[in-house]
């Protein structure tokens, strides 16, 4: 067995790559559904671009049979880490495939760097604490606008994409929380670190995690709510994986909505008379196992007709934004979304909705680039468009 540097964050999963995976290729199709499921493999075709090929690359670079050259960059980084392979694979290592790919990226960053432009995810954070390179918002203006306290039971962790690219989703969530009279506040956030973890660039990850935890603690909060599937997965899964103990309860905004509906506290006073199809965000669906909750909410909105795309729930085709693909391979990212929108078109829906600002961004970009005429809306934005009453 090869020796792996103790300092490598994901040493255990790299070792696993040697003992698991016969490359049976079950990861290539959705299991028993036999639909295309791997955006990377379907695009680039060679075995090196499929999950089992990447496991072979791990073995190759660690046992010295593959040299670290720039040729490795695309096979390693042209993957959305959507987790469709984890869902398809039935072998014992299934749940660790994306972690293996992230671990491979961690090694790659040390030897050949990340894919083109992905380095900006870190450098922009170093300059302004978010991967978009926007001037950091300490969220004090929003606190004033929404009359939020300095300390509260809840923190709404906005996330960089909502705060700098999808403000309508952010604002819809803020209005919802106010209507629900949730005792919440905002903090001066740093990036949740999801983009850095997905691309193997771990230099600032622990510091950012510690910073965010301190900010939330300083706000006196016991609960954190986010409207971003990526932040949600990172706060729950990755903080623990990186050894950070938070001591907070983490909620996605849809979980709060569902709780309020279940307790009969949220009532709809108007309807939403449109045909809507739901795109499962990979970070919420395959990575966190949340498939039915959003659907249960959409189905309770009066007049809203929810229709399913051919590939749905665990079989969903990725939007194409994740895993650093949006910044590293921007044209391909919207090609992936185009395929999703074509599938949505077949349903007769006029609205494609999700529960992730990153999915919304990429679906919107493809919608514009390829002249689809969908409305692309987050669940929170749809809720913002209907009249609701929330009993406290």
């Amino acid at each position, binding site marked *: 067995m090869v020796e792996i540097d103790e300092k490598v964050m994901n040493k255990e999963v790299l070792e696993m790559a*040697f*003992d*698991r995976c*016969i*490359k*049976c*290729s079950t990861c290539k199709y959705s299991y028993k559904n036999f639909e295309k499921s791997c955006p990377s493999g379907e695009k680039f075709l060679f075995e090196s671009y499929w999950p089992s090929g990447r496991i072979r690359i791990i073995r190759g670079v660690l046992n010295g049979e593959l040299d670290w050259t720039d040729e490795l960059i695309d*096979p390693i980084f042209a993957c959305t880490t959507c987790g469709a392979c984890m869902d398809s694979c039935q072998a014992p290592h299934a749940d660790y495939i994306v972690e293996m790919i992230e671990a491979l990226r961690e090694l790659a960053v040390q030897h050949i760097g990340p894919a083109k432009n992905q380095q900006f995810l870190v450098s922009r954070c170093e300059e302004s604490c978010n991967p978009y390179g926007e001037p950091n918002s300490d969220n004090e203006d929003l606190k004033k606008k929404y009359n939020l306290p300095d300390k509260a039971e809840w923190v709404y962790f906005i996330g960089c994409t909502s705060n700098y690219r999808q403000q309508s989703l952010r604002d819809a969530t803020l209005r919802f929380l106010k209507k629900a009279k949730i005792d919440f506040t905002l903090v001066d956030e740093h990036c949740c670190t999801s983009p850095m973890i997905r691309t193997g660039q771990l230099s600032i990850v622990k510091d950012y995690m510690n910073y965010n935890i301190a900010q939330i603690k300083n706000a006196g909060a016991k609960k954190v709510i986010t409207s971003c599937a990526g932040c949600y997965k990172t706060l729950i899964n990755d903080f623990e994986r990186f050894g950070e103990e938070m001591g907070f309860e983490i909620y996605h905004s849809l979980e709060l909505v569902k709780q309020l509906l279940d307790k009969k506290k949220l009532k709809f006073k108007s309807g939403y008379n449109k045909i809507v199809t739901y795109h499962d965000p990979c970070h919420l669906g395959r990575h966190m196992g949340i498939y039915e909750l959003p659907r249960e909410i959409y189905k309770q909105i009066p007049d809203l007709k929810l229709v399913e795309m051919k590939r749905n729930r665990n079989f969903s085709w990725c939007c194409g934004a994740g895993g650093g693909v949006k910044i590293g391979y921007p044209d391909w990212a919207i090609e992936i979304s185009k395929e999703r929108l074509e599938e949505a078109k077949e349903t007769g829906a006029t609205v494609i909705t999700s529960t992730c600002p990153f999915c919304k961004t990429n679906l919107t970009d493809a919608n514009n680039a390829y002249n689809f005429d969908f409305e692309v809306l987050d669940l929170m934005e749809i809720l913002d468009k209907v009249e609701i009453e929330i009993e406290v």
Partner: protein
Amino acid sequence: MTISKKSNAFEKIGKAEVLSRLIDIFGSTNVSNKQVDLYPYSYDMTENEPHMPDFVVIPENKEQLVELVIFCNQYAIPIVPYTSGNNVGGLTIPDYGGIIVDFGKKMNKIIHVNDNMMYALIEPGVTFGQLQKYLEENYPHLRYSYPNAPPYAGVMGNALLSGMTNLGAKIGSMADSVNGLEVIIADGDIVRIGSCFYGKEEADLNSWWSRYPMPDLLGLFVNWQGMTGLVTKCAVQLWPKEPVEKPQLAIFFGLTDLAPFLREVGKIDIINDIAAFSVEVAKMEVGIPEPVKYPEEPYYTAVIPISAKNEEHLNVKLNLLNEIVEKLNHQGTNIHLIDYNEFSKLYDLKARNIYDLPSQILSLHEYSGLTWFGAYAPTDKFEELIEKTDKIYKKHGFPPFNYLKIMKGGHYGIFRPIFRFKRFTERERVLKLAEEIADTCIALGCIPYKTPSWLTAKLREKINPGWIRLFEKVKRCLDPNNIFNPGRWNTSPSSNKN
């Protein structure tokens, strides 16, 4: 770096020129000579030695392949056909380098299904999962025969290599149900074999209905492991899907109780198939992780697919099956039959993987290595095979993992010791076990299929010289420059010059 055995492939033409020609033929996005793209094709799940290809190409049509074959034949460049590399015999490892032709990515269309004569005409890259889904959606009254292979394994490759099926007790191996082929041979000629042989241009899609009665040229390509040409189309038989199914689970408490049961049940044409496993590993299918047999447990279990035209037909079959068990138990065996549907309800859905094929069979995917001595076997040697291999497994410290079947109305059997292992730490150990088991089984008359080179080397020592001379004459005749998958059956580039 993993290297290839010495060949003279690139003495006559430089690799840069080859790359340029391949890009001309296939387009730049469908050709790679990057080490990272080649590396995943350099080895498989088995114990066989890795070897790097020099190029990988992804073809879209036969016209491209004709150009490729003519070019490679001119310069003696090896061509290795590949669908998904799941053959468990090292058969797509490019022993002498050359060009991997990856059929799995674009030449994967189901071209036609003939409902009346019940066959599917497919391209090389069609997989079992794909075919099953297509039939369920378009011809739900028809079925194909599926092996205990993962859903992404290729149909055509398995058919051409005489793979198993879950209709094996009725129809034999998958090769027995190939109706016809389209093949590109070494000089670039396109050959259509079978009832599709009429016509100078493309065959009528409805003409692929029989392999016979013309001289059986199909035999020049079946079981030849890609050594005689590039097959670009294949017609495989389909069967009516019987409406009533009631699979049974048989358990065998005596070490060799399975053997007479297989022989008896094979003769009376009531089962579709039987897949018998050593209990150590069979237990893994219901979620018991450790492959261990405890003292009072049975030695073998077998899943027996049974289907029928109606309930009455089914009951007749089940009664006959029970009569066999009663008769054998009266003679001293200890065999029990259980309703498999009821049994599987005790476990999660994964327990049905062994029956609801194609599936990822859990016990086969435990580690990073998997290999076997997969053999056609004389059924009257089953007892001896079971007893002798049981001792060998124990001697080498491996849990027994034998897989047995009865084929084609009881005319022959399958005996397949399977070895799961950690490929990077246990290879040498497993190779020793495999060799001892192979020697034992071959001595008892077993004939391995999907055979790796180290095993064909053993066979060559036992086979009559006339057979080997004819084999080599045919190979030289069909592939004078030894471009098609050299190394298989120990055909080195120099072997054609004898």
